[in-house]
Structure formats: structure tokens, C-alpha cells
């Protein structure tokens, strides 16, 4: 399971970075989304996977007696997904507006704010 996750994380990061380096604005946003998902998976993996032991205390016991799955990484990822969703939807609307105003999808043509003066 860990090995599979490692490959998925690597794939998401690699494809995310590849897309980020493209010249198209739209592909850049896709790259950021892929990278965000890769990071979420990474937190999930680094929180250590435990199979079949939900963090529920059994009847009669006061503390955990055996190893249990840590619920915190899932809470972190949930927060990160929600925040990421908000930011990504903003970014998508933004590139739509930029495309409407500037009539281009090529990042190399967005250089008027860098010009001297």
C-alpha cells in the first residue's frame, strides 16, 4: 500500500511540475491542482498508514490498548482540500477573466507589467 502511494505521489508531483512549466495559463492551473493533490497524498502517507484499526475506544476500556490509525492527517487533508478548492476555483475564474480581457492563453505574452518605466 505504501509503495503504491509513493508511486502515485511521485507521478502527481512530476506531472504537476511538468504542467506548471508549460506556457499555457490553463495548463499551469491544472499543474497547480495536480501538485496540490500530490501534497495531500503525501501528508496522508507521512501520517503513517495503519490498516483495520479505527481510532475508536472499545466499550469498557479507557485508553487505546493497541495500535490505532491516526485520524489527524485526514483532518489536515480535509482542511487542505477545502482551502485548495476555494483557491483553485478563484484561479480558474481569474484565468477566464484574463482570457476575456487579454485574448491570449500564452503566459509569455503577459509581460506588460514587467516592462521598464
Amino acid at each position, binding site marked *: 500500500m505504501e509503495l503504491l502511494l509513493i508511486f502515485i505521489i511521485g507521478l502527481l508531483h512530476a506531472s504537476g511540475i511538468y504542467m*506548471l512549466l508549460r506556457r499555457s*495559463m490553463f495548463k*499551469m*492551473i491544472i499543474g*497547480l491542482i495536480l*501538485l*496540490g493533490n500530490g*501534497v*495531500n497524498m*503525501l*501528508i496522508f502517507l*507521512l*501520517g*503513517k498508514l495503519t490498516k483495520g484499526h479505527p481510532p475508536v475506544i472499545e466499550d469498557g476500556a479507557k485508553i487505546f490498548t493497541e495500535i490505532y490509525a*491516526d485520524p*489527524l*492527517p485526514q483532518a*489536515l487533508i480535509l*482542511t*487542505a482540500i477545502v*482551502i*485548495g478548492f*476555494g*483557491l*483553485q476555483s*478563484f*484561479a480558474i475564474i*481569474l*484565468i477566464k*477573466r*484574463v482570457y476575456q*480581457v*487579454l485574448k491570449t492563453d500564452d*503566459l509569455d505574452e*503577459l509581460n*506588460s*507589467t*514587467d516592462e*521598464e*518605466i
Partner: protein
Amino acid sequence: MSNPYIVLPIILQLVAAVVLMFFWTKTKAQKTISILFSTAAVAVGVYMLHSVWHHGIQITHSGNWKAPFGITFVADLLAMTLILISSIAALGVSIFSAGSMREERLKFGYYPVFHFLVMGLQGAFLTGDIFNLYVWFEVIIISSFVLMTLGGKKAQLEGTIKYVSLNLLASSFFLTGIGFLYGLTGTLNMADLAVKMKLIENSGLVNVTGSLFLVAFGIKSAIFPMYFWLPASYHTPPPAVTAIFGGLLTKVGIYAMLRTFSLIFGGDEFMTFITSIIAALTILAGAFGAMSRKHMSKIFGFLIISHIGFMMVGISIFSEAVLVGTVFYLIHDIIVKTNLFMVSGLVMKINGSQDIKALGGLYQSHPLLSLLMAVPLFSLVGIPPLSGFWAKIFFIQGALSAQNYLLVGSVVIGSFLTLWVIARVWSEVFWKKGENLPKQANGVYFDALSNLQQWAYIVPMLLLSIISLYIGLGAGRIITLSQKIASELVDPSLYIQLVLQNQLP
């Protein structure tokens, strides 16, 4: 000592933002409410700094979940000082916006979003939990995205694309770093992390994590190889927005670095080496960039970068002497940079241009206003006894005693280049004989404004100028404060002990 009222600065801004939303199209009411709440925030800031100064660090655990399990808010001297200074800058910008923002922007929720942004800043200063810090950073960036695009002009949209994409990337780095930290230690509370990170033997992995945080905060605070988004975007929104961005947003990155490097990744040779090179290059790159530009806001944008480099000096050497300088510079820089962008806004309003070659003769036409604008300009250079001067003494002394001559040299050269840039702005815009610039037919210029609107431009600049004069002339008190903060940063054991004292056995 436990005190639930330390979250008051956050709550106050939240309430302000929510109340303002009920007055969506009533811009006059919005202006009054925003200024009232910002004044209240300054009062709360003064009171709480006073209380922390006399009674020591104050802590609250949300939901009474003891550290390290719950989210902790910690009001120590660094946090409270920055909260006070940022509320003062926010008050200035709130008044400045009342005079300078167009009605159309105010009707699309400028003020509520502005207060959400300030809320995010206050939260980032107060929190004692690394994941919570991430959440506050996201609150800050989403508000800043909205402020930057509000109005939707071509240049604004173009600048925002660069700003948004790099900030999203920085957030991914930050989150990766948090994932690594959690994997290494199993905790997110910064005080608890400080204890557990010392026990980790694999220093390579700690350095990798530290570098991830350095990149994440580095993009946000615009340090050397990662600053290109700043000069491309900061001059595009209206001057009031640029003022709050230039004053506060990059400084949050520096604050986060101070906090994490003090508590989590302290005293590593590799980090010192990397950050001192970055600091030197940031100072020089920013200064050379400022020399190459002729547009006032762009010049000041590059100066932000250069002066972020000064603050990096403290982060790289991390000795008490240099940190005094960094904290002092942080206090001085927030006030001065906010004021500086207001100056460029006012120049724009008087003449309708920001091109320093075309401008001129401002001293002749508006002598008193020019004197007022001279205060932030020359405080920035640090002509003694104005406020920028004192911090540089500590930088140079501290870097000399650490035998880091690279940083001594770059601080000295950086200061000279700043002087050169400001002298050029002063002689071109204020002293040079000016020609009458062509006025746009539909533009409203400063001299044609009503008295009240003119004062809305002048009052915030006057307020911030008086404060930066106080920082310069009453430097003794600020130095005492900075020394206390620096000693807390170098030795955070009291912070750690106070946060963790209620730990379960």
C-alpha cells in the same frame, strides 16, 4: 498565564468585516465603520502589548484542549508588537482608502475583504500551531487575491496571474513541509515541535524540511531567487491596496521565518550558509532593480525586496545582536513602507503620473506636503536620527562580531544604494523644475478635491510619519523592546515551557 481575551484582535476584525457586509452599497457608512473598528483595534493592540509587557506571555487553548492536542494561541511580545504595528498601518490605510478609493470598488466589498485580510494577519501573528499558521496564510492570500483583482483592469489581471500562481505554489511547499514535520515528530504544536525536533538524529531530513519552509516563506516574503512576482504585480492595484500589501504581506513571511527558525530549525550551519548568501543577494538585487526603474511604485516595490534582505540578515546569523536589528527593522519597515506607497499614491493624485522623469516641481507647488512626504522617504534611507538608522547599527555590529563580512558589506552597499535611489526620487520629483503635465479631461486631481477628501489623504500620512519619527527619536524604548523580543527568540525555553505546562501526564 492563561487569558482567553488574546484572540480579541482577530475577533474584532472579523466582526468589522461582517458588520461592513450589511452596508454593501452604502459607502459612507462603510468608511465610518471601518475607521471606527480600526481605531478600536489600535486601542486593543496598545492595551494588550502593555499587558504582555507587564505580565509576560499569555496563552489560550481553543476549546480548552490542552497543548499539544488543541490549537494554541500565544501572545508573546513579538506577536503583540506586530499586532499593534499592523493595526496602526491598517488604520492608516483605512483612512487613506476612504479618500482615495473609487466608489465602484467600495461598492464591490473592498472594506469587508480588507478587514478579512487584516484578520488573517493578526491570526498568523497569534497562532502557536503550524497548521493553523497555514490556514491563516490562506486567509491572507485569498483576501489579497480579491483586493488585487478588484476593479479588473488589464494590468491588474495580468499582475494577479503571476501573484496567484506563485502564491499557490508557495502554499503547496508550505503544506509539504508541514507533512514532513508531522511525519518526523507526530505533532503540529510549535512549542512541542521545538522539543521533539531536537531529539531527531537524522539532520539531513530536518534540513530538507527547513528548506521547504524557507522556499515557502521565501516566495511569500520575496527573497532573492523568488521575488519576481512582486515587481510585476504590486504596482497594479490602487495605491491604498499597494500600501497594505507593501507594508504587511511580505513581513508576514519574515515573521513566519523568525518563528519557525527560532523554535523549530534553530542553529544549523547549512541553513546559516544558505540564508546569508540569500540575504546578500536579496539586498543587492532589490537595490539594483530599484535603480533601474523610473516608475515610483515600481521603485518602491524593488526597495521592499532590498529591505527584506536586511531582515534576512537576522534570520541567517540568528544571534541576539542581529535579531535586535531585525525586529527593530520589522517595526520600522511596516510603518514606513505603508507610508511610502501612500506617498506614491498622493503624487499620482496630484500630477496624474508616476514617471519620475516626467514629474517635477512638487516642492515648489506643494511645499508643506513635500515636507510630509520627505519623512518616510528619508526614514527609509535611515539618515540619523530617523528610524531606519538604528537597526543598521545592530546589523553591522552583529555581522562583524559573527565575522560574516559578506553581510556587513551587503548591508553597507544596500544602504548606500537605497540612499542613491531615494535621492534620485527626491531630486527628480520634488526639486527638479516641473513642466505642466497634460491632464486627463475626466480625471479628478488633488487640488480639485473637497477639503475633507484632501485630509483623508493627509491624515494617514501624518499619523504614520509621526509614528516613524517616534521610532527614530524615541529609539531607546523601541530598542529595549526589540532586545527583549530578540532574547525570547534566541532562547524560546520560556515560550515552550508556558505552552506545554498544562500537558497531560
